[in-house]
């Protein structure tokens, strides 16, 4: 897999700091697991975090090392404060992504038809954030749209065009309120993407606007 489209450093810093909401964190983490370049950038961002932490002026605490050593175990579910991660979530290992993140098969997702050749399944909705899986047949032309906030789209399988840019498995498209686009799936096969969105999409034509209420996109 050759990944050529990466998230901005600001996303990776937020990921390293734990500042992202769950949906965006999940999309970034899936990309980072598949992308050595971004994994290295996150590692550096964490290293900076460690240095900043150790640069803090010490504050007094009543704890003692011996008290900790002799303490009873406490709840440690927080250790796994990240989404569960597959070793190879993108591309050919779509199934491992599904196993790791969705706890069910693709066919078990709550699919809804969202236009010709396009199905969508909503995985999460929290505040104004949505997490989706999109599944589009070859040559599907998605509606031209803009955004009310950020949108991160990770290609899990297949590929799509945006203008003259192609996004293939493992690539991540970083869009926001300054971006308008119209993805077109390549003719080679179906395209499956994981997408986190903030706020409603802004469609340029009426049919998708009408469907928007029904689908909650």
């Amino acid at each position, binding site marked *: 897999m050759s990944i050529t489209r990466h998230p901005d450093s600001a996303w990776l810093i937020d990921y390293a700091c734990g500042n992202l909401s769950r949906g965006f964190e999940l999309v970034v983490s899936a990309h980072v697991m598949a992308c050595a370049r971004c994994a290295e950038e996150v590692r550096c961002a*964490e290293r900076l975090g460690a240095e900043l932490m150790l640069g803090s002026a010490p504050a007094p605490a009543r704890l003692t090392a011996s008290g900790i050593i002799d303490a009873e175990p406490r709840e440690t579910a927080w250790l796994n404060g990240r989404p569960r991660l597959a070793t190879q979530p993108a591309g050919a290992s779509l199934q491992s992504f599904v196993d790791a993140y969705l706890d069910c098969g693709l066919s078990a997702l709550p699919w809804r038809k969202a236009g010709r050749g396009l199905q969508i399944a909503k995985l999460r909705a929290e505040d104004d954030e949505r997490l989706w899986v999109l599944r589009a047949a070859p040559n599907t032309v998605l509606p031209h749209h803009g955004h009310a906030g950020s949108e991160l789209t990770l290609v899990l399988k297949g590929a799509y065009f945006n203008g003259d840019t192609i996004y293939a498995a493992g690539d991540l498209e970083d869009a926001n309120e300054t971006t308008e686009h119209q993805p077109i799936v390549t003719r080679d096969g179906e395209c499956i993407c994981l997408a986190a969105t903030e706020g409603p999409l802004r469609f340029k034509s009426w049919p998708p606007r009408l469907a928007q209420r029904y689908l909650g996109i």
Partner: protein
Amino acid sequence: MNTPPDAAVDSAAIVPFPLDAGRPEGDDSASQETQLLLRVRDQRDRAAYQRLFDLFAGKVQGYLRRTGLDPADAENILQDIMLAVWQKARLFDAQRASARTWIFSLARNRLIDMKRSAKREYAALERFHQETADDQVYEEDMLARAAGSKSVALLSHLPPEQASVLLMAYVEGKSHREIALELNLPIGTVKSRARLGFQRVRGLLEQAS
């Protein structure tokens, strides 16, 4: 998604991405900390833990306080972190991270858990912001110099607007979207500041390795 049981926690990496193997920190104190943590992990060495505790506890508490936690909440979280260092040391992989980076990731994950389980903004954070918003960069700079932190001192060499964005992300726990809203700046401007500042600091950190 289901919450994985503790067994799953142990098999999952705490640092959830592939870190490059065996790269030395180049900083004697960082490698000494890692050696201490390996003695805790492999030999359950209480003296090594005592030294690690002395090196980290006060500074981690200071960091937690800077994020806006009150002393009692910070100490509760510090206890969880230092307990994990002792009880879950087997999860530490020196090939993937130094001790200090691992402990930072523990603090980060504990703070994520607190924010999500509480599902609320903690009020102290807001107080902290109001009290320090204007002097943030200069205060951090001063603290950094006082603590002799190499990389925080590096931050002080950044243009103030870049240092400020990085500090808001790292210390105040704000996403670049939240920073854009708070500073009333276009999202692209905040991303550029974060990216340029981070690139500069990253270069300096790598030089130090």
